[in-house]
């Protein structure tokens, strides 16, 4: 506090005003991250993303060596054996060890899931191997580009999927391993049977027109919450014993189940294999650390290696007996799961509640400190950030933007219905504030019972501009759980165990009794397979476009849907046609995705995950055989909701209410992009960029009417009611679609990054959006620049329907740091969050924009149309301010932050 401030406090105090506790107080400075963290991050920043063939080689070899064996056992041997053969890498400053592959930021291909990508590249890859190496200068110049991404081949490295670098000597292994799977990968087999469907062509047309994006087999696991209970409760050696006991009990016994009862014995045999593989994997890291210790001259570093060795040998056999061992165990299991399939969104879940008993005991015993725990949690962040997903370029770039969404949830309610926040969760937030890494992303399960000081700490973290924690409504989540999983017997207790799987996929959970430190603690964890992999990203505006064009895709000239040949006279008739086309798309896409996932679960069933996920072990069934407690988890994913709703509003208003012009005139304007050059011609995809053609003036009137039509996000019931209608329709329609588990489907409103590519293929839309530009983001965010009445009006619009009808609702907001500076700013941010949660908003996340962004915004103001700055009693749009003032504000913002 400076002199002026303390003087002000004195003056106010003399007047009976306690300002110390009021506004304007600076928050405590955030301490630096630990030295170990900084050293390892230096390594991280210099590392490239790699793909190598070690694990695929061993998987492939073991799979074929066990040819003819029972499939689940064969699969577990291949997965577990591959881990046991994986080269362990231990770095000098690590405390937590293990990674996906021998490389720091490594991943590998899964040709048994999808081989066509590599087989089609085989020839060109082999040619690259034979090509002479580039000059060193060329090689160096590429290395800098794109962070860790290897976007182009250089030196002895070959770029795969524009992201991964693979060493040339491994390419022949990739090509050879992929050959084994030609025609028999999950992709190939499911496609073979899909072709038997008479509507297979319809499916192909949907995918080619990008009405629907991407296939289920591409990432068959993830968008779910992992469950760490088994190894924390028993340890690997005891699990192997338990498997033997269960084999004794169930092998050769069908019980009451004549179809799957006999599978139980094979399941336990498989679990024995996979547990042995995980155990060996850990032992190998221990041995590696011992080996390094024998050759390490520095005493401190040597002691560290020996500590690692001890932890890893313990984790390999016993149940964890310290916080560090428990954290290491969860990391081992997490990597074990993410390595058994291409996947993203394998969420960590409520880790601070799972590990609290271990933290608590260590603190009681006086063998650790909060600072030590924070350091471990910082190092944990690096480990999770290093998890890469190897998928095709379309999936990793177009859908995931390179993130693997290992979401860590905080808060919510515990088994007894009280606040679940633990002391360890405060440290998890603290570690995230000190150690700035993109993963794991944090989500707060906001409940009225969540302690205020925890909410304040989480809000202070949100303010740092990293975009997390995101804020989820716990009650809405619990209501959704009971709604979707009630038929499977979910009760209030299990509903309390939910959290985020993937970025925004609410996933069911359950509590398990962890017996540790002389007491039983009910710890939460996931209890379902993937809460995704149903009908993937479906572009709602694209389907509306096809209604207007009689099913013909004007961009490609292909007939996507059968012509409806109707003259559209009413708004209701148009919406009915939209529903009809949506249903045509859904029916066939659902069947084919069901087949993809069915082939996957038969040949490629989860091994590690089937050990961990309740109630697989209790039932003796793997995840593919409905071993999980809850299986009604497969969804329909929408994209472009608000673009679609705004388009409906524009048509309803201009064509059917005001009769300003006809639907045919509107359609002609859309096909001609309102007389502007298309983004394909100009190569500028900003929604705000327009370049006219000669026929521009022809559509002036229609274009302005479309722009000025009512827009979602302004508390305008004309358009908001259409959003509500849409949701009431989807609520009753989607459960008519059944998943491969035979359960009703439901609405998932995440677009991830697909509003880019799906916007790309969509003509101009009736809301005034131009061809090729992105759809609106999120599912309840306003389309950029169309919300004129501020944040409270958006909240009003967003909550016109009950958010617990769906798996999620996505609200993205931007705030300027000056609006939330200091302690009072944190309170105000929390006021905003609380306001939205009280209205039943399901999710909100914030971009708190800093001066770096303002500088960018200055260079490209059109991209930052909705950015506002506040200076001394006066708010103005950034792009409406002249450059000299912008410079001043940039300067001042930095000054404020210092």
């Amino acid at each position, binding site marked *: 506090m400076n002199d*002026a401030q303390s003087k002000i406090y004195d003056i106010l105090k003399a007047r009976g005003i306690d300002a110390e506790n009021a506004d304007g107080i600076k928050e405590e400075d955030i301490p630096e991250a630990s030295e170990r963290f900084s050293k390892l991050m230096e390594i991280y920043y210099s590392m490239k993303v790699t793909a190598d063939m070690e694990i695929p080689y061993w998987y492939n070899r073991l799979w074929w060596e066990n040819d003819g064996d029972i499939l689940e056992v064969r699969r577990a041997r291949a997965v577990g054996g591959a881990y046991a053969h994986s080269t362990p890498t231990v770095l000098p400053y690590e405390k937590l060890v293990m990674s996906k592959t021998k490389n720091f930021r490594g991943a590998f291909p899964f040709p048994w899931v999808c081989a066509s990508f590599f087989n089609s590249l085989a020839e060109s890859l082999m040619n690259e191997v034979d090509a002479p190496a580039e000059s060193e200068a060329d090689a160096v110049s590429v290395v800098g580009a794109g962070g860790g991404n290897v976007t182009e081949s250089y030196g002895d490295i070959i770029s795969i999927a524009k992201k991964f670098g693979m060493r040339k000597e491994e390419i022949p292994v990739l090509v050879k391993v992929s050959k084994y799977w030609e025609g028999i990968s999950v992709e190939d087999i499911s496609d073979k049977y899909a072709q038997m469907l008479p509507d297979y062509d319809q499916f192909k047309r949907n995918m080619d027109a990008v009405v629907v994006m991407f296939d289920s087999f591409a990432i068959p696991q993830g968008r779910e919450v992992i469950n760490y209970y088994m190894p924390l409760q028993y340890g690997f050696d005891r699990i192997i014993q338990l498997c033997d006991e269960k084999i004794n009990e169930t092998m050769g016994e069908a019980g009451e189940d004549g179809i799957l009862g006999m599978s139980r014995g094979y399941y336990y045999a498989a679990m024995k294999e996979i547990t042995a593989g995980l155990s060996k994997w850990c032992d190998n890291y221990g041995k590696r650390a011992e080996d390094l210790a024998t050759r390490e001259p520095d005493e401190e570093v040597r002691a560290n290696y020996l500590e690692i060795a001890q932890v890893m040998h313990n984790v390999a056999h016993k149940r964890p007996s310290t916080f560090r061992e428990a954290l290491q165990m969860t990391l081992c299991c997490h990597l074990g799961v993410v390595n058994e399939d291409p996947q993203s969104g394998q969420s960590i879940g409520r880790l601070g509640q799972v590990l609290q008993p271990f933290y608590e005991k260590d603190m009681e015993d006086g063998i650790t400190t909060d600072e030590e725990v924070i350091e471990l949690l910082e190092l944990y962040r690096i480990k999770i950030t290093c998890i890469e997903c190897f998928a095709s370029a379309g999936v990793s770039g177009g859908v995931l933007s390179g993130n693997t969404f290992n979401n860590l949830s905080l808060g919510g309610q515990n088994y007894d219905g009280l606040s679940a926040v633990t002391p360890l969760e405060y440290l998890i937030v603290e570690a995230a504030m000190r150690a700035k890494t993109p993963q794991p992303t944090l989500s707060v399960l906001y409940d009225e019972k969540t302690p205020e000081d925890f909410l304040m700490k989480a809000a202070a973290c949100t303010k740092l501009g990293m975009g997390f924690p995101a804020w989820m409504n716990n009650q809405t989540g619990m209501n959704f759980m009971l709604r979707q999983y009630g038929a499977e017997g979910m009760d209030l207790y299990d509903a309390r165990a939910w959290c985020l799987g993937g970025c925004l996929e609410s996933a069911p959970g359950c509590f398990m009794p962890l017996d540790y430190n002389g007491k039983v603690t009910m710890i939460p964890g996931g209890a379902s397979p993937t809460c995704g992999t149903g009908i993937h990203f479906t572009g709602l505006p694209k389907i509306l476009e096809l209604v207007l064009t009689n099913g013909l895709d004007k961009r490609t000239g292909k007939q996507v849907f059968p012509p409806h040949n109707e003259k559209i006279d009413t708004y209701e008739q148009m919406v009915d046609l939209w529903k009809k086309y949506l249903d045509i798309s859904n029916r066939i896409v659902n069947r084919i995705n069901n087949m993809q996932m069915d082939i996957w679960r038969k040949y490629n069933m989860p091994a590690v995950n089937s050990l961990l996920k309740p109630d697989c072990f209790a039932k003796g069934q793997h995840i593919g055989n409905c071993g999980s407690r809850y299986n009604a988890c497969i969804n329909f994913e929408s994209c472009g909701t608000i673009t679609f709703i705004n388009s409906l509003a524009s048509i309803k208003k201009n064509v059917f209410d005001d009769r300003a012009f006809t639907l045919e005139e509107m359609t002609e304007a859309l096909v001609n992009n309102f007389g502007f050059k298309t983004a394909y011609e100009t190569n500028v995809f900003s929604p705000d960029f327009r370049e006219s053609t000669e026929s521009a003036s022809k559509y002036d009137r229609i274009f302005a009417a479309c722009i000025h039509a009512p827009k979602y996000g302004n508390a305008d019931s004309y358009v908001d009611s259409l959003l509500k209608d849409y949701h009431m329709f989807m609520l009753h329609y989607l459960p008519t679609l059944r998943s491969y588990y035979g359960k009703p489907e439901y609405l998932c409103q995440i677009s991830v990054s697909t509003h880019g590519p799906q916007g790309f293929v969509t003509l101009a839309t009736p809301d005034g959006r131009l061809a090729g530009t992105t759809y609106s983001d999120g599912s309840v965010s306003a389309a950029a620049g169309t919300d004129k009445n*501020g*944040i*409270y009006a958006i909240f009003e619009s967003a909550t016109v329907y009950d958010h617990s009808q769906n798996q999620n609702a996505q609200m993205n907001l931007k705030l300027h740091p000056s609006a939330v500076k200091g302690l009072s700013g944190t309170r105000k941010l929390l006021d905003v969050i609380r306001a939205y949660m009280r209205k039943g908003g399901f999710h909100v996340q914030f971009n708190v924009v800093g001066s770096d962004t303002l500088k960018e915004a200055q260079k490209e103001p059109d991209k930052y149309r909705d950015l506002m700055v506040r200076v001394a009693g006066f*708010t103005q749009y950034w792009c409406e301010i002249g450059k000299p*003032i912008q410079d001043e504000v940039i300067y001042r913002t930095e000054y404020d932050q210092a």
Partner: protein
Amino acid sequence: MPPAAHSPVKNMKAEDIRKPDMEKKGLIFDIQAFSVHDGPGCRTNVFLAGCPLQCKWCANPESWICKKHLMFAEKMCKYDHGCRACKDACPYGSIVITESEKPRINWEICKNCRTFECTGVCPNNVLKQCVKEYEPEELVSILRRDFNNWGAEGGVTFSGGDPMLQHEFLIEVLKDCRKWNIHTAIETSAYFPEEIFLQVMEYIHFAFIDVKNMDSIAHEMGTGVGNERILSNISALKASGWKGRLVLRQPTISGYNDSDENARQLIAFMQENDLFEVNLLKFHRLGTTKWEQLGKTYEYSDHGDMSDQRMKELQNIYLKANIACYIGDDTLF
């Protein structure tokens, strides 16, 4: 062609700022949500149109006009190849397209416009209608809706312009705010008849009142009016036993009111009236584009800037006199 006058006061004709004959309908030029610097907590800030002062440095010059009027954001026009939408829409022939394909408007015609045909046709909102009419109930229903969002401390701030210019409308709304237990704040010039001023303030919990210059002649030169009525209203408010909290405000402008002498006089006035909080706002030039959009010349385009050093010096003068002096957004709520 914009009028070539230099003084903003001369730019404005009497009928432009006269209170119109409306029966308690409010003329509002903006409502901002999540306003965090204009009173305690998170607030909704309602900007009422019209102001009895015309300060030469004003950052919201569009707020002076207490009627629906046009704003022309020439620089926002992107549609520069062949668009004639605004020109075609205007029935008065006020808009011409220049050789550089940009629209140009005739302010002499546009300032008297009541129909605004051009504003609904531009996709870029280059031509925008400022000021909308609200029934008191309409505004109150928005405030009651926003009440869900403010949190424990927040409420509504009435700003402007000067909200007291529409005191009949304002009091109607304030009565309802009291009924619904909504926290109220105001930003006002206090340049009103004492009776009206006190009547409004009766419903106010928190007030910012501007004292732009302690020298009445200088006050008139900068704002168009003297300061006597403002100062006497503040004294009357304190004498009335009003229970709210009052923070005086001063936009601090180099060469106009940044002297030690002005500070000393304000301190003397505050001490006489048992006031102890003042908020100095460093002069900024963010309103420049708005002057252009209204077809006016901005006198303060090249002077008036304050250094941070000088702001701190002024702050110290107040602090030494035991007056809590806040700079910029740092007012303690």
